[in-house]
């Protein structure tokens, strides 16, 4: 149920107050070199959606009306699923700062960059949707609104939720899935503007995924068994209650609302406009979960099998 802004602020305020910030000693020396390197790469690989994508070569009028409309729907929906990353990663930055001034500077510096990268991805989705006929600001359908609106930013600030569980679920799983999907969509795109857009987004996403694994590598082994169980629970909840109902893939949306979005993705994919087919997307999801399961095993974490009526057991 959606909440008024004052109540939302109070909820965040309550979570912020649960922490006692110890700012000093405030250490900047690198402690996880791989994350400091990702931060340095982020500075060097900066880009601008308005100037680094050859918009002048994009000719939406060359597309048939139904194809253009399909791509417009696809890129509008992608904007809705990109937007949460801004708040989630900002909240994660605030959480790390609240936890300690002495620890985690590499992650804080990295996360100081990440919301702007998410904003650039969002701007790309918006610019594409606009050129394809107009960005849709609202899914309209109540079910789709709810499926694409989760309070994960608030979860990032929840002292009771181990930060490793948040990063494992939203980073190692969800960011990895986004990267794998972006790569697949890039490979199946033929439009050079969309290819450039997806290539730039995927380059950032690579760092986001590496951040998650670098962060977890530094922290997971120190967790107690109960905290490791929460990590697994968080991933399972995200898979079963968020990913499996179409958070990232139109082909998994509930049948009551799926048709229009799936048809749009299929048509956009067929014409190489930055989407991939349902078959490919299902395959990417299976691959991502398998990768995640194998990697978590490094720290003795066992990710169970998941059962889905259409995907089967993965």
């Amino acid at each position, binding site marked *: 149920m959606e909440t008024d802004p004052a109540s939302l602020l109070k909820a965040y305020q309550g979570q912020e107050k649960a922490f006692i910030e110890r700012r000093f000693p405030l250490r900047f020396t690198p402690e996880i070199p791989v994350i400091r390197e990702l931060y340095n790469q982020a*500075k060097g690989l900066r880009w601008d959606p308005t100037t680094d994508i050859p918009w002048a070569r994009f000719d939406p009028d060359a597309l048939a009306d139904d194809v253009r409309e399909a791509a417009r729907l696809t890129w509008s929906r992608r904007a809705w699923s990109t937007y949460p990353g801004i708040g989630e990663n900002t909240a994660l930055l605030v959480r790390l700062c609240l936890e300690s001034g002495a620890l985690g500077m590499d992650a804080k510096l990295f996360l100081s960059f990440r919301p702007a990268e998410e904003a650039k991805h969002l701007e790309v989705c918006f610019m594409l949707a606009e050129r394809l006929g107009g960005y849709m600001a609202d899914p309209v359908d109540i079910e789709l609104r*709810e499926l694409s609106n989760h309070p994960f930013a608030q979860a990032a600030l929840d002292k009771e939720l181990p930060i490793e569980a948040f990063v494992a679920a939203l980073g190692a799983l969800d960011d990895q899935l986004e990267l794998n999907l972006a790569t697949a969509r890039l490979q199946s795109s033929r439009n050079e503007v969309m290819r450039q857009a997806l290539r730039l987004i995927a380059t950032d996403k690579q760092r986001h995924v590496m951040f998650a694994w670098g962060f977890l590598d530094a922290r997971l082994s120190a967790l107690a068994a109960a905290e490791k169980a929460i990590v697994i629970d968080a991933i399972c909840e995200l898979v079963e209650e968020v990913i499996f109902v179409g958070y990232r893939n139109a082909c998994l949306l509930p049948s009551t609302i799926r048709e229009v979005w799936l048809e749009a993705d299929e048509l956009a994919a067929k014409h190489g406009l930055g989407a991939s087919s349902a078959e490919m997307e299902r395959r990417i999801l299976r691959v991502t979960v398998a990768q995640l399961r194998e990697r978590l095993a490094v720290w003795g974490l066992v990710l169970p099998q998941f059962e889905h009526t259409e995907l089967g057991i993965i």
Partner: protein
Amino acid sequence: MLLQKEHAETYVQEHRYPLSLAPEMPSVWDLWQRSKTLEWDPQVDIPWESLNPEQYDPDAILAARRYWSRRTWGEYGAISESPALLLRFNLENRLPDLRFYFTMRTQEEGRHAEASWLMAERLGGYFPQPENPPTAGAVGTHGVRRMAFDPDTSLEGIFAALVCAAEEILIDVFKATLHKATNPAVRRLMQLILRDEVRHIAFGWKCLDAWAPTFTPETVTNIETAVITMIENVEFRGYRNLWLAIEGGDATPEEIDADRASCEAGLGGNTPEDEMKVFPDFVKKIRARMAPWGVELPLFHHPRLGAI
């Protein structure tokens, strides 16, 4: 736990849609666009090879290390606290221009913190804490995060306090003392920080100027209270410059004198004389600038600055 609390409505769902993304405040949208073209990297865009700390008196170097360490702590405050404002923009469904721009602002503050730390390190070593670290108080925080999550503190008040007061005086001092930074690496760093901060300040003023016609008497009071608090409880307690601390705090005499000694060596910082000139001008400026909104800032009394 991630979804359980959502189902139990312990986590509350924001009113996200319609998710407008089209620019609605062209002047702020322009700041977002310009920020993307003016990114820089502290590691490569500062002429570190010209820092040459060995050419300076050891006392001056120690002072400069203290000054830049202290600046690092202040910049860290910006990455640790002001991002809460971006969350507030999201929760209140504010204009997309604000949300887009503030993502870059957070990034820029991260760069400033890293750059200030690098400067202290490369001058001989960063100090990770004051000699007498606070448990909480003036040196530690400007309190913006708490304000950002407080529904009783208006966004206008936070902007006025953080941007139009705290950041404005910081930049006024930078502008007034940039010419004293004779070291090329220090000067370049100050120029780059200044270039970003000018946008940060422009953001605050542009927003408040645009919203001013809708200010209620309560908004005006909120702005007055927030700015007075920022000046009396943050600036006058030495958050930015220890010399201004009315009650002295726990800072050592060497820490208090570091800004002056560093400045006189050409390594960044400012002197009490600079503060004596810049601070009163700053107060006059913002008092005049806010007056058309109906905001009346009182005279501030400071033992060394007098009534300003």
